[in-house]
């Protein structure tokens, strides 16, 4: 176990190092200058700016400085918001994104489990078909389309929830719904398949032969065995939520990392793009490691070795 974890952490660091290196040199290759108002600057001003951002030094030196900084979570200074370090720019926005992502994940998974298990228990009936249709639609309708529709019809027309902004609990409801539909649909499909399998397993049959009622068999032997493998989907969900947050945060005007990422890309703010990329990668590798550990804890068959 300890050996496995060490190995995993080594690969995590290797991954992050490679991403940092690749992003750094990609950004260095970029033509043009990073400054927003470059056209108006004189050569001297540029030289001063370059010095301020450390751009006058040899590339290798810049690279080492960058790596050393990145290891501490310091990604340099944003080109667009002068004098503001990328790390504080991201740090200020981490909370909103994390809260939104977590809310969407929890809502999506819980509702998905409920819909999926109801479908499996009623396999082959109209309830099952309805659940299947719901999850296909949920999987197919892009979350940003749903977000725009929610914002207009529920927010503006019906006025049930604030149409945008961040701060109050009510403002989180519509973005959470829009983001949770993807994980919800995926979970419902997954749980349904797993449960249909489990329900026809020999140990469920033995449970019935023990004299357990249908409800008892489902509660004691089916649900847990169907839900455990769901842990492996948390990683892919995290990726989907990162993607989703870029557009959902924009639509609902939420000060999160996703919204910052979009803005930085549109304004060629390379240090911020690099910083956010690193944060996303770091988030994912940590989540993947955590889900592996959790999986081994809740499923006695899984042991963390090669």
């Amino acid at each position, binding site marked *: 176990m300890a050996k496995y974890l060490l190995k995993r952490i080594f690969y995590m660091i290797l991954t992050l190092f490679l991403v940092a290196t690749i992003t750094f040199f990609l950004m260095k290759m970029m033509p043009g200058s990073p400054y927003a108002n470059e056209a108006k600057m004189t050569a001297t001003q540029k030289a001063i700016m370059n010095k301020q951002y450390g751009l006058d030094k040899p590339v290798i030196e810049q690279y080492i400085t960058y790596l050393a900084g990145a290891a501490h979570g310091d990604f340099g200074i944003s080109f667009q918001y002068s004098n503001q370090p990328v790390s504080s720019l991201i740090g200020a926005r981490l909370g909103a994104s994390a809260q939104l992502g977590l809310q969407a994940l929890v809502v999506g998974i819980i509702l998905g489990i409920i819909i999926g298990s109801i479908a499996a228990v009623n396999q082959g009936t109209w309830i099952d078909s309805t659940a299947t249709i719901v999850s296909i639609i949920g999987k*197919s309708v892009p979350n940003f389309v749903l977000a725009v529709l929610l914002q207009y019809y529920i927010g503006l027309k019906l006025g049930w929830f604030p149409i945008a902004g961040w701060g109050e609990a009510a403002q989180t409801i519509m973005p959470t719904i829009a983001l949770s539909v993807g994980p919800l649909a995926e979970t419902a499909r997954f749980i349904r398949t797993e449960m249909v399998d489990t329900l026809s397993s020999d140990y469920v049959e033995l449970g019935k032969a023990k004299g357990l009622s249908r409800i008892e068999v489902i509660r004691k032997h089916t649900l847990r065995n169907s839900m455990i493998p769901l842990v492996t989907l948390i990683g892919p969900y995290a*990726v989907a939520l990162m*993607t989703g947050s*870029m557009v959902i945060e924009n639509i609902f005007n939420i000060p999160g990392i996703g919204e910052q990422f*979009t803005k930085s890309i549109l304004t060629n703010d390379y240090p911020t793009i690099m910083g956010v990329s690193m944060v996303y*990668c770091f988030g994912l590798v940590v989540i993947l490691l955590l889900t592996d550990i959790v999986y081994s804890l809740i499923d006695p068959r899984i042991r963390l070795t090669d």
Partner: protein
Amino acid sequence: MDQDASNVKITPESFEHVEKGDTQSAEHISGPSLSFMQNVWIRFKSNKAAMISAVIIIVMVVIAFGSSFWINNSSLVKSAPQYANLPAKWKGFDWLNGLNGKIKQNGVWTDAYASVPAGKYFVAGTDYLGRSLAQRIIYGTKISLIVAVVAAFFDLAIGVAYGIISGWKGGMTDNIMQRIIEIISSVPTLVIVVLMLVVLKPGITSIILALAISSWTTMARQIRAETLSLKNEEYILAARSLGESTFKIATKHLIPNLSSIIIIQTMYTIPSAIFFEAFLSFIGIGISAPETSLGVLLNEGQKNFQFLPYQMWYPAAVLCVLMIAFNLLGDGLRDAFDPKGQR
């Protein structure tokens, strides 16, 4: 004693020995034997949702590509301000709000076509530059389909080649190739795509490239797993011991047996590529005007959604139908290839 109440008379002849009835007749196989692909086709045909989806996709592809002769980007960039922002108007549908050229302004349905010459109809209305939305949607669908299909094709080519090499070579090569996949797949797709788009110039080619590069790992993993198990199948061992070249074995034996995985996985890659293109264009870092795609149309439609909702509704509906159809088709193919429905 349970005597059979039948009216057969027992006579001495009844006990005459008969030659053992021909056992062959008891062993006849009912129904003609079907090949694997025939079975797949029969199962697929019986799945109504998948069949309808296949028809919808075919119709959309035919319309999108068949219209190339009439609708091209150079004609689509021409603006016609006199027709700007007209809602849909269909001949003979004057009674139906939404298709009669009227639009709701301050709660009243007013005729938007009042200043337009009579006899001019736009079946899906026009955009802010007076261009036919129907034409733009058809053209945009074509671009979205091209992006998705080409990306899926590259993804397939990279994934299949990588998976076969990794699974077939085994040992150290496999080990290293798997570590590489592990590292790549622990980087969010989004980051790879965004970095590619920042470095390359946003546009159709860079989106295709970015999507292909970021999504081949799933295919490669599945192909590798299947190659590993196929490698030890007897007919492949036989081909190997007969000295057949690896390339020949791969094309003659492996690829046909991997075809179901390739088809199913590709069918799932296409809708996710469609989604990604729409997503990137929607936030403005993918395809952008003057080029058109479903994502571009959604992006433009969203700006005016409050006043001219049809400009977003129509492309959104086309996008959703396309996504649903591809997902249902993928499910149908998966069930047809693997009746147990494992995923």
